[in-house]
């Protein structure tokens, strides 16, 4: 409490919503009792200028100083913590000033997924509403195309693993794949509403609880109607 915390791009950036929400649920975290500094992670950048930046009146939010990055400010102690989907450079370089909040993050995250069924999502595909009106079936066509791409990628991954042509330098990749198969079964990245309902509804709840949306949105309101059965 009473800390200065960095967040990339906007107060309420997707990974920040997840991190705040999970900490609120599991640890009683109160975002409003901290000060939030918004900026670029590794490159100085102003907060996103293309979306509104709503936040509750009781949450103190400010821009990072011009020319500064959140990674550097974490290393120097100008911010106390950083909520980020990406590991900051200072951490990768082994700075003695910085440590993970949860050193055993993998086991904790896997346990969270087992307990809740939630594997936090950050991105989806969106389409212009006028376009969907003009072209019946377009949302389904886009959905099927992205599913086909994912399936092709998964098959490529399986094929390369069988032939030991894994396109990564990471050691013990087989062990990681086996752990993931045990946790996620066949489909590591399920698309569609039903497989992700708990995750998406939790995200929308967090978004509302954190004062980023004026009401609790339903999935039926934000996804194309023809895809609600996916």
């Amino acid at each position, binding site marked *: 409490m009473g800390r200065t915390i960095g967040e990339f*791009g906007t107060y*309420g*950036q*997707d*990974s920040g*919503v997840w991190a705040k929400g999970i900490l609120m649920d599991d640890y009683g975290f109160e975002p409003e009792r901290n000060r939030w500094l918004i900026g670029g*992670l*590794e*490159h100085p*950048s102003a907060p*996103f200028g*293309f*979306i*509104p930046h709503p936040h509750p009146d009781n949450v103190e939010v400010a821009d990072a100083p011009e020319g500064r990055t959140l990674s550097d400010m974490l290393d120097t102690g100008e911010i106390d913590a950083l909520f980020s*989907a*990406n590991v900051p450079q200072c951490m*990768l370089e082994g700075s003695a000033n910085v440590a993970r909040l949860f050193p055993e993050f993998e086991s904790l995250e896997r346990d969270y997924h087992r307990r809740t069924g939630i*594997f936090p*999502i*950050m*991105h*989806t*595909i*969106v*389409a*212009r*509403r006028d*376009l969907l009106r003009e*072209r019946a079936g377009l*949302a389904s066509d*886009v*959905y*099927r*195309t*992205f*599913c*086909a*791409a*994912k399936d*092709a*990628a*998964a098959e490529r991954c399986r094929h390369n693993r069988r032939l030991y042509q894994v396109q990564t330098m990471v050691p013990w990749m087989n062990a990681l794949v086996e752990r993931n198969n045990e946790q996620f079964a066949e489909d590591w*990245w*399920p*698309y*569609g*509403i039903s497989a*992700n309902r708990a995750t*998406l509804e939790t*995200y*929308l709840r967090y*978004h509302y609880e954190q004062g*980023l*949306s*004026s009401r609790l949105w339903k999935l039926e309101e*934000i*996804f*194309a109607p023809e*895809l609600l059965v*996916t």
Partner: protein
Amino acid sequence: MTDRTLEIGCFQYDTTQPLFDGTIPADSLERTMETAATLPEIFERLIRGERVRHCRTGPDVLPEAAGVGSAVRRAADLPEPGVPALVRLRQHPFRDHGTT
């Protein structure tokens, strides 16, 4: 390119790479694929596209990968319905670009 060609913007993840490299043929969905150095650039193009669209002819179609939060936040004034192809979860590969 015809006027039915979709411009789809998304990052080149392993799960979307087959859309870029021709593994998934265009006959099911005529499209051009675009990416950018950072994800926010893609989001911004979609959102600012509403202005471009009014003065453009031809393919002005722009489904894009977007943060769930951005879609929700915009929903109050310009709904952009989601397609539940949830391109990537949790971790981004391109740290150096400061992507979200």
